[in-house]
């Protein structure tokens, strides 16, 4: 008796679920089927209000899928590649640029050059319009001011010390630290980067899960300095912790300015609405909002500097010296292949790069 009751409940429950799922696909839930699907790798705290504002103004319903910070944008990039034959995403808002080059190479994106595209400088957009950058952040050295003076020489000294255990960086397999590595690889060459990587680990450089952890380590005084992004730095600064920042400068005094990027997905079912969203994201209004947010992102399009917060004006000046990230695709692919081998299939017996003990450059 008990058995047959359970069977009935299970069968009815399953039927109910299948019917619900089928209804959702048959456009009975019109809102869902008309919705613009957005994959967003940018922090939900900043991106969600902007996307909701677009939804409110245009009446276009939107379904957003956020990336978890643990997997960085690579999670969504892989998903987009995985779904290429039958895409469900219309617009991809990425929080860095090199992943877009990968998607472009995999033919996941389609070009769009609208009003927003026109206002962004050439170095931050694809010439054919496959992706467009906006609202950037910079790689910075975060420094604990109660432990070390916030000037480039003092940080340089920390990197030259025999032991690097007062410094921290994020694992370079993902995110903006991967971009940082790609820049170094482009400028130094991969063999030199590998040698530097090995040598700094041997000297005790702390490697942690993400830029937010680097920020925590430095802000709480467990480390003196480390690499992070400007948005993470401002979280610590706004909390009143003793931190300062210096732009990370690579060869020829260049900075690393990493824009958000937006792209239209090949095979999108809602192209006009997707184009509307892309123009909205690339507008001066959105860039200004992101500049005034607690992330203090740097506007890339033309904008009256008076409207910007003072800190963002300083960042905008640093961003002028930024490396051209469009040229880094090959370097990024090389880094990804090497780092995947290094971190996920690392075998001590197969190690071929001998650790360099002297003369390694500081970043």
């Amino acid at each position, binding site marked *: 008796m*008990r*058995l047959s009751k*359970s*069977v009935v409940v*299970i069968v009815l*429950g*399953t039927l109910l*679920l*299948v019917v619900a*799922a*089928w209804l*959702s*696909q048959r456009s009975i839930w019109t809102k*869902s089927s008309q*919705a613009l*699907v*957005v*994959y967003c790798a940018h*922090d*939900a*705290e900043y991106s*969600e*209000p902007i996307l909701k504002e677009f939804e409110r103004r245009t009446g276009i319903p*939107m*379904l*957003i*899928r*956020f990336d*978890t*910070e*643990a*997997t*960085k944008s*690579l*999670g969504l990039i*892989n998903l987009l590649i*995985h*779904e290429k034959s*039958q895409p*469900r995403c219309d617009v991809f808002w990425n929080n860095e640029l090199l992943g877009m080059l990968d998607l472009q190479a995999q033919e996941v994106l389609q070009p769009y050059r609208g009003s927003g595209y026109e206002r962004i400088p050439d170095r931050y957009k694809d010439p054919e319009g496959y992706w467009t950058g906006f609202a950037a952040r910079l790689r910075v050295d975060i420094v604990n001011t109660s432990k070390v003076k916030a000037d480039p020489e003092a940080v340089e000294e920390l990197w030259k010390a025999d032991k690097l*255990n007062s410094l*921290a960086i994020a694992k370079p*397999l*993902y995110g903006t630290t991967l971009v940082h590595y790609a820049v170094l690889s482009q400028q130094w060459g991969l063999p030199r980067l590998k040698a530097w990587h090995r040598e700094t680990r041997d000297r005790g450089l702390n490697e*942690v*899960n993400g830029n*937010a*952890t680097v920020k*925590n*380590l430095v802000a709480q005084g*467990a*480390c003196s300095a480390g690499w992070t992004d400007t948005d*993470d730095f401002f*979280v610590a600064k706004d909390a009143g912790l003793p931190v300062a920042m210096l732009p990370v400068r690579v060869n020829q005094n260049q900075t690393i300015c990493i824009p958000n990027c937006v792209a239209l997905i090949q095979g999108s079912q809602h192209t006009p609405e997707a184009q509307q969203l892309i123009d909205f994201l690339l507008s001066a209004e959105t860039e200004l909002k992101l500049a005034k947010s607690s992330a203090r992102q740097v506007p890339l399009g033309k904008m009256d500097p008076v409207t910007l917060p003072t800190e963002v004006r300083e960042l905008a000046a640093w961003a002028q010296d930024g490396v051209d990230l469009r040229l880094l695709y090959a370097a990024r692919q090389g880094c*990804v292949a090497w780092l*995947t081998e290094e971190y*996920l*299939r*690392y*075998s001590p017996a197969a190690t071929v790069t001998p650790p360099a003990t002297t003369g390694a450059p500081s970043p």
Partner: protein
Amino acid sequence: MTFTAVWLWTLLRSLVLMTIALPGSGLLVRWLRTSPPRWRGWQLALLMLPILFPLLLTGYAYSQMTRLLITGWWPRELWFDLLLLLRVIPIGTLLWYYSPPSPLSREAWHARVLALRSDEPVWRRLGVLCWYWVQGPARAGLFAASGLFLVLFSEFELASLLATTSWTVWLFDAQAGGLPLSESLKCCVGPACCTWLACGTLPWMFATQPLRSAGHSANQARLSMAGRAGCWSYLAVTWGLLVIYPSVLIGREALPGVGALFSNGVQARGLAQGILIAAGSALISGVAADLLAGLLLSCARQRPNWLRVVILASGVGLCGSLIISLVVVACFQSSWLRPLYDTPLPLLLGLVVWLLPRAILLQGMLQSIRSPIAEHAARLLLTNAGPRSTAARNILWHIQGRPAIAVRLLLCHWAYWELTLPDVLAPAGLVAAPVRLYIDMHFGRNAMLTAKAGLTLAAPLLLVAVCWPWLKKSAT
């Protein structure tokens, strides 16, 4: 490290921790069984609550101990081992405490030892003793050991947040880095075999137990003063490290966090939706898994051939949430299931598959402590009108309704706090509350996180409190 090295390390760690945890669980079982019955409910509650405190929050609290993260691999590993050990000991205790009684009594075991013939070879005598030992005195301990191993070997959240070595974290990182599904599945063969080997006996025990049982030994000696002090010390340390410290750390910015959350309408609405999504999917999948487990166990008892189905169904769920997610995604991306891909169905299916072995375990435990005679007597009483009927309802609630609801709530609790399955399988636009929390944890925004964590924790408790009278009524 290669994947093989990582999973072998996880295996070694799980075996070592299981060996350490088992005597602790045994001690706590004796403590429970020899305590006055009126205290037992409180003792069980004290043991249960640290297990129910979300591991995501515990892991986050310790990931904020920044010095721990940079003290090197060994201190981090040892700290992780300590936390994990404290957390799993109550699981072993509960499994042992509620394990089906052995088919061999202590007296029968003793008689078998006496009956050994001295002229037989030693190896043969040892073999016979081992066989009877496994069937008799060691049965409940082995059952607890299987459960302990399962939890230790499949741990993900704490290992991820404390950046320790674990096959689950390695696979998650590799998958995020673009490892093809076929490669991921190949990687899983070794860990899955280990899990199946360790836990394959559990469904068999539950499916066959009611047919032959010798009952629990009733006359156990009361625990010594030192033993009782050890149990209370263990509880104090566990509560301190797994519940109080994380609660204080997360709760200290509660007020400004709640203010910030409610002043940000988008975030507040997103969290409310996330809680609804997590609670809805947890409710559906928890109840479905429970019903399915009851059905499978009943079938296995009536027709022994069904035992294979029970073991197979549990085996799939034992592969871990990441593997289940990947397989479900692959299935729903095939051409004939593709229309259902962007619906809640993959998430619900993944949750049911993941919960099923736990549900089988809990259902088995529930059925092992049931008393059909008492239930029958209570039902007979129920046919009378007046105060006897009320008394019968109360009895039925205590012996049948309350345990059944506890099992379902536990399953729903696990589904509610699951992270990987909703992250990978939920359709676009459906972000479950724990996934939102996880995003915030990695960005390290404490004030907002505090408020979100508190509300995510409180919402289901509030829901259960509101629905409790209705649940009680429907269960009797």
